[in-house]
Each structure stands twice: as C-alpha cells, then as structure tokens.
C-alpha cells in the first residue's frame, strides 16, 4: 500500500506503457472506488451519447424491425420541418419571457428582504414555497386557476371589471404561452431570490458607506454598487435559467399538451412526441442533438461573458 503523498513525491520522469501498467497495478484500489460510478456513467452517459449520435443517422422505430441507415435525411428533414421551427420559436419565446421576469422579480424581492425589516425569514419561506412544490402539483393548481369557466383568474378579473367576458387562457392561442410563462415565473422566483440574497450579502458594506459619504442616494447606490457587484450572480442565474427553460416540459404536458395549434409546443415536448408518440427515435435524437447544440453555443457565449465580468 503506497500513500498518496508518496505517489505525489515520486518523480514521474520515466513514462511508458510498462511503468503506467505497474502504477495501475499498484493503485488498483482507486479503480475499485471509481468502478460503480464509472460503470453507470459509461452506460447511461458515454454510451448513450454515442448511440444517440448514431441514431440521428437512422430511421429507428421501436415498432418496426428494420432500422435503415438514412445518412443525413433526419437533418435535412429537421431543417424543413415547420413544427420544429415552431418549437424553436416557442422555446425562445418562453425562455426570453421567463428568465428575465423571474430574475427581475427575484432581485426586487431579494433587495427588499435584505433590508432590516421584521419577519424576514417568514417572507423568505413564503416566497420559496413554490420552489419546493412538485412541478406536477404546480401545473395542476394553475390549470385550475386558468380554467375559463370556474377558474379564479377569470372570476377576479371579471369582478374588478378588468375584462368584460371570460378569457380562455390555455385554449386561446395568443394567451396560452403567456399563461404558462406566468406560472413558471411564480414557481421560479423563490430560487432567484435565494441566490440573489446570497449575492447581496457578499457585497462589502464599506462600499455603501463610502457611497453615502459621497452623497449617493438609494437609486445610484443600486445602479453603481448593487447591480455591478451582483454581475456574477446574475450570470449564474441566467445560465441556469436558460438551460432550465430550454428544457421546459412538465407544465406543457399537463397544462396545454402543446396546444392550441402548437402554440406551446416546446422543443422538449416535440422531442417527446416524436419519440414516444410517433416512435421516431432517429428523428427525435436529431432534435435532441439540435437542442444540445443550441445550449452548447449559449453556454459558451455566457461563459465568455462570465470571464469578462470577472
């Protein structure tokens, strides 16, 4: 048994297959530690990724015995697919609306909760409750709230004369997506709030004191200290928010099922339909890789922004 310190101190000048082999033999127990995780990881991630890539070049249906290799057919089909384009637009719409709203409201509440007020912990818990509620339950509650005949939204909007006749919400093609967005904002604000609260607490108080001495008001303190100092937090939430929003599915499945007329068919919902409704595994994998590619580009851009912010 060699110690880690020993192994680290030992000069690694000589390299070569024999040496590597003997080191591997000496450190066999490390591989034992790694094996359960590595085994599962190899099957469910590495193999899966490669296999998904292979699938994009085939026409693979679970109900058909033949799985012909079709080259780039799936890709050219995707580029011409009207529903795919629709799903990308819907996903972008959902992300573009949900992420900034969730972050903005989360920041507002975090700033308020960072003030010396009473019952701060209580308020924090209240705003955080939607985050711990199972998403399926959130979607069920909101589906009820949006109901056009007996939902609470219509009841109160009619009562306050903001609308004159009941809105159809989830079955109205122009309102369905905003309705899903509103629900998602409600369920996500608590998360942004908690992260922003942590960010706010790491800003040195001396900065504010110095600003006050220089005569800066609350607004300019917010603009010139709080928001710039929160830039890393904001970026973190943005990356997380965009990754999460691009994968929106549960709300759509329960509340709208992609309708009306595909107005809420998001990319993941479309992947789900292609794979498990039409059994087109090859095409669905192609769609999944398209999603992956978009997220990859987004993440790279954001990481670059992050490095610059640092």
């Amino acid at each position: 048994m060699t110690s880690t310190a020993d192994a680290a101190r030992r000069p690694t000048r000589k390299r070569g297959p024999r040496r590597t082999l003997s080191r591997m033999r000496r450190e066999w127990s490390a591989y034992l530690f790694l094996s359960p995780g590595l085994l599962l990881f190899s099957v469910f991630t590495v193999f899966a990724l490669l296999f998904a890539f292979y699938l994009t070049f085939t026409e693979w249906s679970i109900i058909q015995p033949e799985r012909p290799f079709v080259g780039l057919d799936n890709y050219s089909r995707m580029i011409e697919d009207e529903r795919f384009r629709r799903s990308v637009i819907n996903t972008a719409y959902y992300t573009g609306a949900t992420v900034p709203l969730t972050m903005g409201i989360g920041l507002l509440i975090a700033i308020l909760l960072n003030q010396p007020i009473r019952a701060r912990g209580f308020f924090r818990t209240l705003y955080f409750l939607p985050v711990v509620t199972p998403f399926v339950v959130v979607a069920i509650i909101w589906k009820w709230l949006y109901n056009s005949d007996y939902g609470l939204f219509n009841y109160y909007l009619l009562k306050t004369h903001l609308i004159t006749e009941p809105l159809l919400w989830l079955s109205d093609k122009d309102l369905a997506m905003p309705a899903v967005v509103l629900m998602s904002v409600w369920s996500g604000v608590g998360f942004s709030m908690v992260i922003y609260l942590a960010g706010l607490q790491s800003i040195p108080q001396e900065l504010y004191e110095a600003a006050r001495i220089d005569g800066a008001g609350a607004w300019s303190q917010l603009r010139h200290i709080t928001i710039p100092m929160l830039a890393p937090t904001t970026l973190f939430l943005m990356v997380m928010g965009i990754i999460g929003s691009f994968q929106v599915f549960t709300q759509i499945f329960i509340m709208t099922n992609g309708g009306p007329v595909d107005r809420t068919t998001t990319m993941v919902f479309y992947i789900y339909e292609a794979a498990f409704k039409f059994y087109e595994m090859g095409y669905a994998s192609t769609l999944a890789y398209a999603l992956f590619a978009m997220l990859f580009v987004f993440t790279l851009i954001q990481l670059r922004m992050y490095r610059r912010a640092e």
Partner: protein
Amino acid sequence: MSLAPEVLPADPGTVVGKPRRTEKSRPGKKKSRSQWVKRLLCYGILVPGSILFVAPFAWLISASFQDMGSMFSYPPQWVPEDPTLNGYTTFLGVGGDDASQSAQSSDAWRWFANSAFVATAVTVLQLFFNSLAAYAFAKRQFPGRDLIFMLFLGTMMIPGQVTLIPNYLALKHIPFFGGNDMFGQGGHGWLDSYYGLILPGAVSAFGIFLLRQYMLSIPNDLLDAARIDGASEFRIFWRVVLPLCGPVLAATGIFTFTYAWEDFFWPLIIISSPELYTAPLGLALFVVKNRTAWDVLMAGSVIATLPMIAVFMIFQRKFIQGISMSGLKG
C-alpha cells in the same frame, strides 16, 4: 442535471447566512422619517406579493376539503362552508361515495410508497457511488485520473434529453430481464421496473464534482496517519473521509431526494403499469384521464406536496444550500 461548474457562486455556504444588520444599528434619529417611508415601501410590496404567492396554495388546500359542487361555486369559497374529507378518502381508496372513482385511485398509496422507495434508493446509491468516485479523484493518484475526471465534467452540461432515447433503448434491451433473452431481445428489459427508475440516476457527475471539491480540503496528513496505523483504503474512506463530508453530503442528499421525488419525465417515459407509478406520474396521468375528478386531484396534490414541504421546513438551511449548489429544479 446538466450544469456548468464554473458559474457557481464562490461559496454556496453564504446563501444561508443572515443578512447583515449594519443599517439598523446606525446611531442617530435624524433619518427616522425616511427610514419609515422606506420600511413602509418594503412592506407595501412584500405583503401583497406574498399574498399572491401563497394564494394558489391556500386555494389548493381549501379546495381539497370541498366537494365538487362548492369547488365550482361562484364566488369561490376560500373557507369551505361545508368541509369534507371526500377527496382524501377517495384518493386514498379508503371509502368515498363514488365506487368507480375509488377503484381508479386505489393505487394512490402505492404511488407514494413507490416515490418514497425510489427517491430513497436513488439518494442512498448516489451518495455512496458519488463519494466513492470523488474520493478516488480527490485523494488518489492513478493513471488516467485527470482524463476520466474531465470526461465526467464535460458531460455535465449535456441536456438529459440527448441521452433519454438511447437510455430508453438500452433499458429495453438489458439481457435476461423483463422477458429478454441473452441478446436483450423479446421483452421489455428494465423498462417498467424499479431498476429502470433507480439505476440511471444512481450516479451524478455534478455530485461527484461537488464532493471532490470538498474532499480536496481534507488534509492528506490525516489520511497518511490512518494509513500508517494500517487502515485499509476503504476504511480510511468510510471512517475518516466520509464523516468529514457531512455538510456537503447532507446538502446534496436533500437535493437529490427532492429531485428524485418530483421527477416526472423519466417515469413518464419508462413506466406503464399503474402499480409502478410514482406520485407525480400518478397525479399527472390522473389529470389526463379523469378530467372531472378535481376534488380527488386536489387532495392528491396536497398529499404529494406535504413531504416536500416537511423536508423543506426541517432542513431549511441545508435545503437552500443544496438547491443553490445544484442550481436546477425539475
């Protein structure tokens, strides 16, 4: 599941710290009036906001104690005039008026038991496997270590949807299970089974990453001392390293549990027998199939939410810490 480690806040621990109170302790009464206005403004936004945030819950709880007639009544009853446990008894299959509904939902107990079992199994396995791997990455030197670690890290930002379909196909063709022959043909393999629900989630690259970072801070001298005393590698891991990882294990464990409890997409895809439904899947399919039984559904929703709220209330600090470390919710 898919995460970029570089964008984590520097110290997740600060999340739960109390806000500083320098403002409050400042001497002088001159500012009292503007302070007052400020405070009023705070409450003026926070109180109505929190009412809006809590209203859907209040309605859910209230509705779960109403029968269908009063649920549909205008104006809505925030406090049930004629409270009933009908929704709960029907949902849990312990009676109820409508025999047909009761028959449809008598599996409800089973759904919750399934969710509890699957979430517990995933959490225990993941903590164990993650920490084993993290220990190797953090405290051992072996050929290929950095390469394998980079491979783990590199896959963290891949969306689950990419691996979804191949995983589905892989589970379908697991040999010798679910009626499959040795070539994985003929049956449904691990689809529609506990194996399929648990094993793909039994390791997490992100969990390994977090644990490794934490283990790096454990001094090597401690491990060397144990080695000199003749402890085996596993014993060092189990008796020295793991106990020191308590906080990070707790935080990731709570998060893993809640994530597994509410996971919906994966069970939706691989499970088809009602006796294997998890709670979210059972509820969601209940919505799809029994469009009219809202009272039962509301009761089921309350029951599905309670464990989450309980976990949150008990471990509030750790919970927020965990969720901010892992950064993503279903």
